[in-house]
């Protein structure tokens, strides 16, 4: 029981706290956004205007010349296509393999389930650099150096983060649904496809969006496997681009903006699922 005085006291404190929180958030948002604003502003500037001091905050014109030039200086169109291809197929692979694996670990009974799950969890600690050279040897023997297969095929073979994320989600579903379907004579694959998957749409969206972004943004793996300009994905292409035009910031910012925009759009469309997916992945209690 709270009396009237106590109540107004708390609500006053709450309001003060909220004001402080608001101020902190506005300040932080300003700091977070200023660089992003600067990227957009610079991407539309003429070269000569990038040197101005004091800086030109908003160019009085909207020059699309930088965006056009990005496509002529390097094969940016093919690079975009490569990124779309790798990220789409890569996230498809992750969704298929991690959903199946995560479901088995969460819901099916089999010999060695607990040890296997712990091993998968433990592999999250293994730095990619430890396995990168042996995987390179495999890819080389398969003739997949300078081939997108080196990036796409491994995506179909699971991964600790995705399996863990899907497992955490499947554990939240009630058992009764599967039991009912099983009594009706459905086999595990039918249960999975017709009962579980329709319920798993939020988790599938989160996994798809997270892995699309990861493939879209990946630098190291494409850097190792793709040396031909026409095969490169955007991050590698842009980083080479920087070596060639290191002071043409307007051009570089246009390229960076073109790289960020699709990921940002996907994020905006899926943010509710994506954010709860990230939160779900922290349920390390197991």
């Amino acid at each position, binding site marked *: 029981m709270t009396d009237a005085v106590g109540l107004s006291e708390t609500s006053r404190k709450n309001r003060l706290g909220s004001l402080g929180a608001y101020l902190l958030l506005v300040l*932080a948002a300003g700091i977070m956004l200023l660089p992003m604003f600067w990227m957009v502003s610079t991407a539309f500037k003429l070269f000569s205007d990038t040197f101005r001091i004091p800086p030109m905050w908003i160019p009085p014109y909207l020059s699309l010349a930088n965006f056009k030039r990005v496509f002529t200086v390097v094969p940016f169109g093919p690079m975009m296509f490569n990124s779309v291809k790798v990220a789409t197929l890569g996230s498809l692979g992750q969704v298929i393999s991690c959903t199946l694996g995560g479901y088995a670990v969460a819901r099916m009974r089999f*010999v060695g389930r607990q040890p296997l799950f712990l091993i998968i969890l433990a592999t999250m600690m293994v730095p990619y650099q430890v*396995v990168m050279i042996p995987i390179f040897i495999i890819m080389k023997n398969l003739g997949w150096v300078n081939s997108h297969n080196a990036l796409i095929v491994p995506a179909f073979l*699971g991964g600790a983060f995705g399996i863990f994320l899907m497992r955490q989600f499947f554990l939240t579903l009630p058992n009764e649904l599967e039991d009912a379907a099983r009594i009706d004579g459905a086999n595990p694959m039918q249960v999975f496809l017709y009962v579980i998957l329709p319920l798993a749409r939020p988790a599938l969206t989160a996994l798809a969006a997270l892995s699309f972004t990861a493939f879209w943004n990946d630098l190291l793996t494409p850097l190792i496997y793709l040396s031909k300009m026409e095969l490169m994905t955007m991050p590698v292409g842009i980083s080479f681009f920087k070596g060639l035009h290191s002071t043409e*910031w307007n051009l570089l910012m246009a390229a960076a903006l073109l790289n960020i925009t699709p990921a940002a759009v996907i994020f905006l469309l899926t943010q509710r699922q994506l954010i709860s997916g990230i939160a779900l992945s922290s349920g390390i209690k197991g």
Partner: protein
Amino acid sequence: MPFRRMPRHLVIENLWAFGFLALSLIGLVILTLGPILVSFYLSFTDWDALGAPNLVGLRNFIALAHDKTFFRALWNTIYYTLVSVPAGMIISLALAMALNRSLRGIGLFRTLFMIPVISSTVATALLWGLMLDPYIGLVNYLLQLAHLPTSGWLTDTRMAMPAIILMSVWKGLGYNMVLFLAGLQGIPQELREAARIDGANVWNEFVHITLPMLSPTTFFVLVISIISSFQVFDQTWVLTKGGPQESTITLVYYVYQTGFQQLRMGYASAIAYVLFFITLIVVMLQWVTQRRWVFYQ
């Protein structure tokens, strides 16, 4: 759960389960467990990516002990981790606490803070290359306006690593913030109310309720932040190529350089294994010490 242990059922259930797991198991063996063994073997060889690997015993590791660049990379990685992890965690916790209330427009802030997270490191690093440019960058311009000392940032051996840390903290804040926010929302409101009725002030509430209740999240954020900061690469690749004068070379950068640019795959495997070993030790230490400060409900 009562479960009828009929052998045939069990066999069939196992078969189904391993069917579901087939892709993941192949990946686990071919892409993780196998390679861990192979690179362990390679770290004792002189393999140059072309000929056959020759066993050279501990020669790579002995060479590492005398390799100045390796120690530079090791120190830089530790420096990066020691600064960026606490800074990133404290700021993102503060932001999450500010966000953890029902105010108008709160969702918008969360979205804004996530934009750098989903942007590629390559693009955001380029952006910070411009921001930190000594002559035309906004950072020096704003410092000048405020009559503060400016810097050469990425061109200055002392300031290059702090500049990269600044960029990385800026980029990663949103991710940790989302995790902290989820943790904060899991703290029962009754606990706070009970504390307030008992006369706890804001600070008491933070120290005695928020921090202990949040500790599983804090633990998780700490572990993944450390693991990922041990693997920092993209920023230095785009901005400094490890320079100036190796001031931003990191372990992963050095693995890439020796392995894929100089084709000293054996030596690169040895460096990677040192990285692996350090990661294992740090994670184990965290597991062991977590009992003292992590409270599960």
